[in-house]
């Protein structure tokens, strides 16, 4: 939407959160702030006017000129009389409606305007604010900001990506059942990294499209650091599985670690990329985490056969330097295995 502002004494402001409550002045009511906003109530332009009559329309003689083709040349006017602002529709083709702060919508010809009301004319929206409008409390810098400042440093981003590529190369080395080819390894490491880079790139793109600051370096840095942390947690889980016997509570605990890490990643992604309330941010992170882990669980569950003729056991083994737990003797092992017979008998009786 093209905006032209030819009003004297008008002040433009772009920062939404920095406007402060002015001191009470005798002529406070003659000062009015009109914000052009999108349908999602995102600020496009802000006008501060100190006139007692304001004309709004498509014509060039207006105080606020809107180029929306559904708006009439002299669409509405706002008048200050006896300390109250009145909205008059000048017989427009498409009419005017007023949406108050409670979200109520009504068509009007002449109406008193309150602080925070939104005027809908044509396909455009204007929010009317008085200079004593209450603004939200100042948000203090969270401790994450300083952390993010470190992470978004290009060198830090580069280090985390390189580290991730090394891990990916190592994984492809381990999985190769034949003689390893260095270039092959790095091609696969590069393609894996490229694949994983889609996530921070996607988040940055969405925040750009929703008129937020994309902060692409921060997104890349934080995402790759968490990918590395996820890999570390998987290693840790395997070391635990290798060192512990069946039914270890520790093992169960460590299966929840990746879920917690994924949640933190999504939370930080949304913290960096979007200005949303804390509750909404948690909701977003929870729903993406649920979608990811719940989805993969559902997929596994749906593939699970009704009867599995093969034994399911934990085969995790690692090189001897990862071995920290002491070994049991045969007696203890057999004693614990003996319990399986009762379990199997119970399972056989079930159906």
């Amino acid at each position, binding site marked *: 939407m093209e905006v032209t502002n030819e009003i004297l004494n008008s002040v433009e402001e772009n920062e939404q959160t920095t406007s402060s409550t002015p001191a009470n002045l005798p002529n406070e009511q003659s000062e009015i702030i009109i914000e052009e906003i999108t349908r999602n109530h995102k600020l496009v332009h802000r006008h501060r006017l100190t006139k007692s009559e304001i004309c709004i329309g498509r014509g060039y003689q207006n105080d606020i000129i809107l180029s929306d083709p559904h708006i009439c040349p002299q669409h509405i006017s706002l008048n200050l009389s006896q300390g109250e602002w009145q909205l008059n529709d000048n017989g427009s083709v498409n009419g005017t409606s007023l949406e108050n702060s409670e979200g109520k919508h009504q068509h009007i010809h002449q109406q008193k305007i309150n602080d925070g009301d939104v005027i809908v004319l044509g396909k455009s929206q204007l929010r009317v604010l008085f200079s004593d409008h209450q603004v939200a409390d100042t948000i203090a810098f969270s401790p994450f900001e300083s952390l993010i400042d470190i992470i978004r440093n290009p060198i830090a981003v580069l280090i985390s990506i390189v580290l991730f590529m090394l891990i990916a190369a190592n994984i492809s*080395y*381990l*999985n190769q*059942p*034949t*003689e390893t080819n260095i270039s092959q390894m790095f091609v696969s490491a590069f393609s894996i990294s490229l694949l994983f880079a889609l996530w921070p790139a996607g988040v940055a793109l969405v925040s750009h499209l929703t008129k937020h600051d994309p902060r692409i370096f921060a997104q890349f840095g934080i995402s790759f650091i968490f990918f590395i942390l996820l890999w570390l947690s998987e290693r840790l889980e395997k070391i635990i599985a*290798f*060192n512990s*016997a*069946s039914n270890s509570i520790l093992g169960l605990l460590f299966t929840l670690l990746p879920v917690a890490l994924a949640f933190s990643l999504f939370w930080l992604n949304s913290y960096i990329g979007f200005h949303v309330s804390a509750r909404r941010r948690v909701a977003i992170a929870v729903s993406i985490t649920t979608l990811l882990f719940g989805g993969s669980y559902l997929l596994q569950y749906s593939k699970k056969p*009704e*009867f*599995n*003729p*093969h*034994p*399911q*056991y*934990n*085969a*995790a*083994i*690692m*090189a*001897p*330097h990862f*071995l920290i*737990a*002491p*070994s*049991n*003797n*045969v007696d*203890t*092992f*057999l004693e*614990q*295995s*003996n*319990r*399986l*017979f009762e*379990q*199997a*008998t119970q*399972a*056989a*009786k*079930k159906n």
Partner: protein
Amino acid sequence: MRTFFTLVFILLSHTAFATEQAEEIFAQLTPSLYQIKLIDKASGEKSSIGSGFQISADGIIATNYHVISSYARHPEKYHIEYLDHQGHTAQVTLVSVDVINDLALVKRKVDADMPFFELSETKPIKGEKLFALGNPHDLGMIVVPGTYNGLKKESFNERIHFTGSINSGMSGGPVVNKLEKVVGINVATSGNQIGFLVPHDKLVSLFERYNKQPPADIKRQMAKQLMASQDKLMKALMSSTWQNKELAGKALIPIIDVPFIRCWGDSNTDKTDALIKAAIASCSLDESTYLSSHFFTGSIEIQFRYMQARNLSDNKFYHLYQQQISRASAGNRASKDDVSEYQCHHDLVRPESTANTDKSINNKSVFCTRAYKDFPGLFDVLYLGASIDKNQQALVSHFTLAGVNQENAMTFTRKFMEAVSWK
């Protein structure tokens, strides 16, 4: 290679060839020879066929257990019928089984005493000419001449090695000597001209036990036989010598010195590009007990695998090694209706027998078991031990036992675990 037994019913073979002369000789036996059919009640059609022969004047017919196994497992779904040489059909009742020796007795109604096959009192001698009779579908009675070649070596449950074609559909038919006396029952074939028979004395004792006291419940009779058979087998294994044998010069493994457990070896020393050198020794009991087409038991498998890394990091060696041990599976076939799912336990185990010596081995051990649904007290058992104490070498020790009780399973597992070590 391992001999695979092909059970010879169900398939309706048309390759049987009759020897005309023999047919004339044994023409008088045909009234006592039957085709045994399993009829699916819902569809009214036959679901499997085999042969049978009358062994008493009052209508007892002997056949293979595997011919009527579907009925024994699901009596509500089927009934058993005979078809005689004149084309008469009538229902018979199942009266007794010997599931270990694959025999069954069914009874038909008779109005008067009937002719029947006599069971021999003596064993045949090696090289003696025998005649296998059978009644495959639509071909009528056929006679196959062949030679007695003694009892099959290396078998735990005795089987006669018969050189002659036993064909599909002949299962349960008698094998007679020149005196027209039954010396065996057709049971299996192992390909060209190699047939296997159940020795007649198994039938004699089944028939005697039946005459003394017919079993009240077939399922319970089977459970009792399976329990007794596994006990006999496991006791035989436990009381035999377990020889310590070297594997690839690095490990000591037990080889059970009994003729019915046969061992085979393999290695990949010819493959120069393999990342891991491997030597495998596997031993098994080459027979199993047929319970139904989806349920076998009584088998034993033992396997050892020694692995040595070749230009590999420890981590990669263990990564590939883990892939080797993550898919152990049951040694016998069983379905949802037959067994529970496996229950498993794993732990790090260092057997004390060699602890504190240089033979000492530290294993990740996995033990799994599943219970039989119809035969309480019987289990399939699986053990897997993977050494985790050498950076570049590994020893996998593994066995499966099918259809054993808890006590025997645990005794065997203990002895096995303590018998495996480094050299």
